[in-house]
């Protein structure tokens, strides 16, 4: 799927550079389910954002599907990200003004998908996550677990090859969390989607087939 070589990211401060990521060498193959763990401030989310091309890095190489990300132009990077990566957040980040169906549909608008196809794809997703009855509700009217399901549906609607999840169960109770993990496992096993999740929970991390431990911006194991 992708390989990183010596990725390093820092911010400058009067006291010198503060390293957010240091010398990250990571290679992830297609179809893997990886959990990133580490204490608060260890750089988990930063790493995820860099991998998801939402954030830049200062040194190193990032080869995503044979393309060197650091040399790409903004537009090309955006295309690469748009077509291959889905994002899921701890705080769901649904758009408050849009209904469930509209939220799920949103990414397709930026893919230039035709309206009929969009409608079919949304119906598909609603069906798959059992939220057909909720399609006209607004995010504020849903429970946290339901909101996260919508978030996942939205991430998957573009059929990404890589799913990045930043503490997807952080705001959920354990039962809801388990459901989400089941969804991830199914996706990974049955559809071959590569999943990378950031998590605090050993139990959730165990769903993956590989765990990366981060400390002070470095991979420790």
């Amino acid at each position, binding site marked *: 799927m992708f390989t990183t070589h010596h990725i390093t990211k820092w911010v400058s401060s009067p006291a010198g550079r503060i390293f957010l990521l240091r010398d990250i060498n990571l290679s992830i193959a297609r179809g893997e389910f990886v959990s990133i763990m580490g204490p608060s401030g260890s750089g988990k989310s930063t790493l995820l954002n860099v991998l998801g091309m939402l954030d830049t890095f200062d040194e190193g190489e990032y080869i995503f599907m044979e393309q060197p990300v650091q040399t790409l132009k903004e537009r090309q990077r955006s295309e690469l990200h748009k077509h291959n990566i889905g994002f899921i*957040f701890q705080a769901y980040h649904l758009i408050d*003004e849009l209904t469930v169906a509209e939220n799920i549909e949103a990414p397709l608008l*930026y893919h230039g998908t035709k309206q009929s196809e969009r409608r079919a794809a949304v119906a598909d997703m609603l069906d798959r996550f059992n939220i057909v009855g909720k399609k006209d509700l607004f995010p504020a009217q849903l429970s946290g677990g339901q909101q996260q399901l919508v978030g996942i549906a939205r991430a998957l609607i573009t059929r990404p090859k890589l799913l990045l999840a930043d503490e997807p169960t952080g705001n959920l109770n354990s039962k809801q969390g388990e459901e989400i993990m089941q969804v991830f496992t199914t996706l990974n096993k049955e559809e071959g989607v590569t999943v990378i999740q950031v998590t605090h929970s050993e139990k959730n991390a165990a769903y993956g087939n590989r765990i990366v431990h981060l400390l002070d911006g470095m991979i420790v194991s």
Partner: protein
Amino acid sequence: MKGNFVEKAGTASPSPFGRGSGRGFQLTPIVRNFLSVIRRFKMATTLNILGLSVAFAAFMVIMIQLDYDHSFDKFHTDYDKIFRMELSQNTSTQALICRPLAERFFESSPHILAGALTSSWLQPAPFHIEKDGVRILYEENSITVSPSFFDVFTFDFVEGVKGDYLSPSNVFIPLSLSRKLFGNESAVGKQLVHASWGNQTVMAVYRDFPANSIVDNDIYFAMQENENRQSWGNFNYYVYFRVDDPSNVPQLFENFKRNFDAQAAFGADFTWEDANVGLRFTALPDIHYVTDVGYDRTPKASRQTLLILFAIAIVIVMIAEINFTNFSTALTPMRIRNINTQKVLGARQGAMRFSLVLEAVLISLLSFLVATGLMMLFHRTSLARLVDADLSLTAHPLIVGGTAFIALLAGLLAGLYPAWYMTSFVPALVLKGNFGLSPKGKRLRNTLIGIQFVSSFALMIGVSFMYLQNRYMQHSPLGYDRDELIIANIGRIQQSRDAFINKLKAYSGVEDVTHGEVILSSSDQYMGWGRAYKEKHILFQCLPVDYTFLKVMGIEITEGRDFRREDALTRHGAYVFNETAKKKYDMEVGTTVDGQEEIIGFMPDVKFASFRTAVEPMAFYVRGSENWSDRSNCAYIKVKAGTDKRAAMSYIRDTLAEFDAEYTFDVKFFDEVLQRLYEKETSLGSLISLFSLIAIFISVTGVFGLVVFDSECRRKEVGIRKVLGASVTGIIVMFNKTYFRILLVCFVIAAPLAWYAVHNWLENFAYKTPIYWWVYLLAFVAVGIITACTVTFQNWRVATANPVKALKTE
């Protein structure tokens, strides 16, 4: 109680309104809160105060002008019992009356308590006074009145009394002039030495009238006792009279007809009905608004204009008020957390609402104070000349006080909704975060923005057409050559007219010179002549000119011939009529008017009067040898194309000075004549444009402010959309789309409104500029561009920001 709450909130938690609550700080808690709000929301507060203060200042200026016009002549004692006498014939009415008719009329009814005549123009009176053996020269306006003038209008005499009969060689002067001439000394008994009338003794000094009156603060001369006393043909006087009760006025004319021997005055076969002549009486306060009266030189205002200005004043305050409310509600998401923190800490809802409302009121009152400052500034700029009234604040306590009251109300109104709204949430819900913009509040704000867009469109379209009409009137072809034309009044050197003209013609820059009795396009109408033609009574406007006039002015002859030198040598003179007259009266070349004055030709309908009136039957006339005195005193000097017009002008002035070095001649470019003719429209236009611009400016501030808040609130949404793959362009387009939808709806509402208003206004003119569709398009594009720039500029930062940052803030 209220203070108690704020204090509690303030000391328990320094967070609610941020900093500023240092220990030992002795400001009252409310003021402290207020100051920290200003500090925290600097931009919102600045925009609010800016918009509101400009609006209040504009409101006051307009109100003062409206008050000036509204109270015009209403401060006179018995103003409702004073009337002006006018003479109407056929469809036209004139303010000038002959003396015997006026005096017969005064005698005709016991209801008329006093009647007076004034001369028809203000004369500049050149005079000098002697002070310590030194002559000091002055020139002041003077007017000649019959002594009873002071019985009709009540003067407040500072020195002397009205009983001091104003007789020839006596004058009454205003207090301002007395001060100017004699300082604090008593003026009574002092001599003014008039350049041609000799010694005049000051008999009385009267207190100056306010500027908004037809009674001017002039030097009053007494009318000669027998001046034109029996001249039934000399319509030279304005006539005013005072009655015991205004309800008797409608009967005065009937009563006069019964008691007046009209046949003795106007001829044996005269009847009022056949001549279609009548008397009309206009109440003193209405004179200011009456515009259909010929020879009426009193300052005019149109009720319609005042209405437009009043509407604009209301719109301006409304727009500013809408901005204010919008800002207050838009701030809700940013403030709500603090407010609810206070609530959790135990603040009472009522007390919090009170302090929020108070905050709005304080901002509004502060804006009012800034507005008074702006007024004082405005007072000093040249823009103040657009307003007739005195703009000093102390002169208008009622308007200034009233505006302060409106400011108070505006504050209350703008504060109430957000105060109620912000405090209405269950604190737990809001503290949990995830507080979006409520759809209801959004709809309200969009509606309010909509009102601003609608008024911006309407004002922009209205002002554009006002400009176009002005341009149309000043630049449309008139039917004669108006370029390179200089007009000089040479009445002073009439005996040397030919010598003067020959001297000018010798100058290389001058192409030709002609002269006439009046200046073309300087008035709505000219001398009206009633004559007999083919046994019918005809009426036309007559402009006596020199025989060279048409040739020099480039007016073509469509039938017959141009004037010749010989025409001036005939006994009765000759006419060239316009097409309208020809058609209306079925005229032919070679026939005569009144059986003696020959019609020698016809010309097209040149625009000899203003564009306000349609072209009427009209003739240029070369007087014959038997006609009255030659009063052809307006020289029309045509300068060669390409000549330096300024140089030509100074040559003309120099030449005039050779003939009379003392007198300052009135010499002007013809364009100035047109400008003066349309002064009313121009100054009205600038006034309305100025205030419309202010309204549009305030609207734009409002849109700007809201866009800022909107983009702040949607920061997170933008972040999400970018993560989902939206491009910067896509996001900018998305924001613009929202506003353009509102813009489009507003345009659809505003366009017909503006069309209706413009259409109605143009009805005032006989010649109208077409209602161009592109003006509408232009207004839409202009407002669209302003909005798009604001939206794009404001959202650029948000759209290009790293989405990670926007998503982190939870």
